[in-house]
């Protein structure tokens, strides 16, 4: 069974540009999460989709970030316009059920560097 995949693996952009990250969850997983880790800091929750609906987007930093999950399959996270502080590793995770103790399976992450 394929795991969670993310594209691209790395992205280097200039401040003010737009970047779109993609996540393909494990097939059949209705729950999809986005996280971010800024260098040396904790992995921080950004948002949670249940199918195509946003269940919790309390961790989204500001309105420059837009997440979508059309059709309840893959998800995209767009940053527009990117700022220097957006640099970090963006992880996507998925789980079959939303339960509090359900295992979340993480993708390898997208390393974003904003210059």
């Amino acid at each position: 069974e394929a795991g969670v995949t993310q594209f691209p693996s790395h992205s280097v952009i200039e401040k003010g540009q737009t970047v779109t990250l993609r996540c393909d969850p494990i097939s059949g997983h209705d729950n999809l999460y986005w996280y971010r880790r800024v260098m040396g800091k904790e992995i921080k929750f950004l948002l949670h989709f249940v199918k195509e609906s946003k269940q919790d987007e309390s961790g989204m930093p500001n309105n420059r970030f837009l997440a979508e999950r059309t059709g309840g399959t893959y998800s995209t996270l767009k940053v527009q316009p990117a700022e220097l502080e957006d640099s970090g590793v963006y992880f996507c995770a998925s789980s079959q059920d939303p339960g509090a103790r359900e295992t979340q399976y993480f993708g390898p992450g997208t390393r974003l560097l904003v210059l």
Partner: protein
Amino acid sequence: QQQVKQSPQSLIVQKGGISIINCAYENTAFDYFPWYQQFPGKGPALLIAIRPDVSEKKEGRFTISFNKSAKQFSLHIMDSQPGDSATYFCAASIGDTGFQKLVFGTGTRLLVSP
């Protein structure tokens, strides 16, 4: 209150030794405490998890010790091996919402020397 504090930031242990990573939390509503292991170039993967109604959970060489009154929990890796070299994250979540929202520590880079 949503923080999970993790220490040390990095750790070097000789092969065969015991690796110990500590975490502390403030929010008493946390009721699930997983540990994630991350190898370079990979995403974090669930290693072991504990609920606050038990004080210890062991899976092979990995043990979580949980102290509810002190609001602390720790990961012990017995007989550490070079293959255990990775970054370890503790985390916590609140279950009463019905949805899992993980709060992570800052991570510990473990190097097990041969």
